[in-house]
């Protein structure tokens, strides 16, 4: 309870800083918290906002689906086969820290403008952390499980389904948590740079028309949804790890 109140104090301080910046920078640069919330409320009431909102989160959903399935497959393969794991790990790690924004034009050239480019761009951001975390999880499974599986004469498929995947689930959620924010980032940058739909486009469009309150309201709503999803994933992650430990 006390911790909750303390966190509330942090929010109040952040809003106060925001208001202070508003007084400092003026209306043209920064809308006040009150005005932003008012605009956000009116956006939530307009149907056209929901079209953009759906566009962004449908793209995010597809991208996450591809990232999770692909990352899981790559991670399992590399985790179960030692040599390929050793070969691939440094490559994956250096791909992870590469600024993939640079590659965005390539994605546009391959997929064209629109939904598929956004999904692809989001997916390449998310797939690598999921693969790295899954691989790590598979590699750290206690050898006694594999021995037990061999004693029970489990087939390869049974081994993966009843030993490897359950053991990898908590790490998979951790990977998803890291991957989620990167995937969202990818989708939003995609929309800001070249798109006619979605929340990223709304932000850029509001800049173009010097509509600061709308821009800040969209960012506020986007950030709130993102934090909500991220917090639930984190909660799930901690519970799963707790159960295993």
């Amino acid at each position, binding site marked *: 309870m006390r*911790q909750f109140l*303390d*966190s509330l*104090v*942090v929010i109040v301080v952040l809003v106060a800083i925001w208001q202070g*910046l508003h007084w400092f*920078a003026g209306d*043209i*640069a*920064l809308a006040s918290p009150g005005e932003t919330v008012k605009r956000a409320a009116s956006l939530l009431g307009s149907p056209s906002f929901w079209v953009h909102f759906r566009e962004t989160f449908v793209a995010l959903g597809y991208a996450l689906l591809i990232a999770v399935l692909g990352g899981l497959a790559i991670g399992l393969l590399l985790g179960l086969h030692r*040599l390929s794991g*050793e*070969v*691939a790990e*440094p*490559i994956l*790690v*250096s791909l*992870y*820290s*590469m*600024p*993939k*924004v*640079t*590659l*965005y*034009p*390539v994605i*546009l*050239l*391959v997929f064209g403008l629109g939904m598929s480019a956004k999904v692809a761009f989001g997916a390449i951001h998310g797939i690598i952390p999921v693969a790295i975390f899954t691989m790590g999880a598979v590699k750290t499974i206690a050898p006694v499980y594999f021995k037990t599986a061999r004693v029970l004469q489990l087939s390869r498929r049974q081994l993966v389904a009843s030993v490897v995947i359950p053991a990898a689930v908590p790490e998979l959620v951790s990977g998803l948590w*890291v991957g*989620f*924010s*990167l995937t*969202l*980032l990818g989708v*939003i*940058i995609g929309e*800001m*740079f070249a798109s006619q739909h979605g*929340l*990223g486009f709304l*932000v*850029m469009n509001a*800049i173009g028309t010097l509509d*600061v309150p709308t*821009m*800040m309201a*969209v*960012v506020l709503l*986007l*950030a709130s949804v*993102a*934090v909500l*999803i*991220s*917090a639930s994933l*984190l909660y799930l992650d901690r519970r799963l790890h707790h159960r295993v430990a």
Partner: protein
Amino acid sequence: MKRATWVRTAVVVGFVLLLEASCRLGIIGRITMIPPSEMAGHLWRLLQSGRYNSDMVETLGNVVVAFVSAVVGGFVLGSVLHAMPRVRRAVDPFLATYYAVPFFAFYPLLVAIFGLGAAPIILIGFLFGVVAMIINTMNGLDRIPPVLVKTARVNGLGSLRTAWLIKLPSAAPQLFTGVKLAIAYCFIGVIAAEFIMSTSGLGYSIAYAFNNFDNRTMYALMLFIITLVTIVNAFFHVWERRIMARRGW
């Protein structure tokens, strides 16, 4: 060299050759991608002509400023938060969900406040890198074995010498993770910011080349960034391994 290293080199070389072959044979059209050899050749010419030197210097300068301030700032903030458990617990949920907030959406706002200069770009890079450093600094300080701190007290070490001789080395592995993440995030932040809204820099030059269908320049500059980041990462990787090896890990 180990077997895995050989296989890895072969895989990377094979991939580049495959790309080269698919481009040359027309499986991948020229409008989509040019052969890697052509990218390298054009990059070499661009470097010689010096046309993009000022953009390169500018982007790298921004990355370095953002990186140094993120590492120093993140270390200081992390240490301060670590010393104040109550504040830390209150801030924790915000730090944990920090990276879910798409910061680039704030970038136009920063441009409105600071103008179209280096400041908003560096700030985005800093904001992106600093939290990774804060989180890892706190994790590192958490992992200092209490027995070492007690030993320091028994030996009558002052707080400054305890920090230098005990705390810093014990937290080093986590700090290194923070530094590596910070450099990656600063690169992403700076280049993405230049991409979206800027009038110079490598990110802007790539976007400009893309909009003008100048594929050769675009791919040459991409190759430059990717090579550079790979070299920087490899440098930190080797350095980290050396420090770990000295401690017998």
